[in-house]
């Protein structure tokens, strides 16, 4: 399982990469591997301001659908539109081309509540 050390993680298997006030968010390598082939990523919350823990979209694999939970509060400013036609990027490159949304964070102190790579790895065993 790949868990880059420069990212923050939620217990719900999302990762966060901080770029100034922007949080780039996706799902972890562990999550994509558990889900299997991802066939559809649906995010219809661009432009909305939401709290951490709220559902910002869903990811559909062949066998299952999962809610996507926002790891930090803020405005969803961008959806990775490449995923419209190529949802498999989440499987192929979960921390790179497979990123899902960008969020303008409203409270950067929330980042402190997220896990580091080691903590996340421990949480999934």
């Amino acid at each position, binding site marked *: 399982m790949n868990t880059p050390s420069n990212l923050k993680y939620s217990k719900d298997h999302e990762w966060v990469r901080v770029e100034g006030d922007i949080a780039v968010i996706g799902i972890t390598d562990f999550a994509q591997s558990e889900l*299997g*082939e991802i*066939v559809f990523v649906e995010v219809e919350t661009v432009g909305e301001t939401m709290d951490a823990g709220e559902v910002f979209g*869903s990811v559909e694999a*062949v*066998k299952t*659908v999962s809610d996507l939970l926002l790891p930090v509060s803020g405005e969803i400013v961008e959806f990775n539109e490449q995923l419209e036609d190529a949802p498999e990027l989440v499987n192929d490159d979960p921390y790179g081309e497979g990123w899902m949304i960008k969020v303008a964070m409203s409270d950067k102190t929330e980042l402190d509540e997220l896990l580091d790579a080691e903590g996340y790895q421990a949480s999934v065993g």
Partner: protein
Amino acid sequence: MKTTPFTETHIALGAKMHEFAGYNMPIEYSGINDEHITVRNGVGVFDVSHMGEIWVKGPKALDFLQRVCSNDVSKLSIGQAQYTYFPNGKGGIVDDIIVYYFESEKYMLVVNASNLEKDWNWLVKNNTEGVELENASDHTAQLAVQGPKAVEVLQKLTSVNLAEIPFYHFKVGDFAGVKNVILSNTGYTGSGGFELYFYPEDGMKIWNALFEAGKEYGIKPIGLGARDTLRLEKGFCLYGNEIDETTSPLEAGLGWITKFVDGKNFIDRERLEKEKAEGLKRKLVKFELQERGIPRSGYEIVNADGEVIGQVTSGTMLPETKIGMGLGYVNAPYFKNGEPIYVKIRNKNIEAKIVK
């Protein structure tokens, strides 16, 4: 957890494994989509050794089967198989099964793994004819070799002329140097091919021969994940999803294997005849979404006004066309009047079209 003769091989091949009906079974190897497409276009091998096999023998075997099965078992010739179900005495279904007619007074029933114990108890309880019942599941292994290239691969390994075995017929013969293998022209994929039954100790010999013979056709192992999408695409029922102890076989579209013929007084006959005469209140339909989305088991089906008119029982995104399709029960008159139906996916109602 129980194992099959192939469990270690699945693990060695890197399959994603999961418990199913008490067995450690492969869910996927290269990926459900790739495996699905392999079976539709080439050939794939499924380990279905978890399936149950029950033998029914004795002078009253036919009488017994005519009473516990919905289909007309008397129509079978030796060497022929038949899809049927056990009505449960309450208008529902104990299990859907295949009956194989081996020789006079000797039949084999192939039942769902998850229902084996329940089926066995049901048959024992209803055995008023005093037939001999034998649960052979633990010493019977099974591989399904399915796809348009399956017969070419299989024919390389047997002297039995497979072209002479029609659909839903079988022969017992040599295969890959193993004697007394049941070669059955049946399957659960809608892509053609055979199902092979043999002793577990012969399993690896057969597996290895199949993969060697199939190499030139790109043969692959297929998991239970693609088994589900393949059957779903063809609209085949899965026990536990479309049918169970509470569902009407007529509503499930199993009227074609429910035979109200003279002299066949099967369990629930009167009840089902009455239900048929009164007209069905709902019916299982196959549908395709008109926009992007994936129907899932338990999602509501609604009409144009948003009123609930049914429920999804199985759904997926088809690997080749990327269309969201599913099976579900839809109330009268919507299952036949051509009005649009909608699947409620999260907060949206996505239009669906009923298809054949």
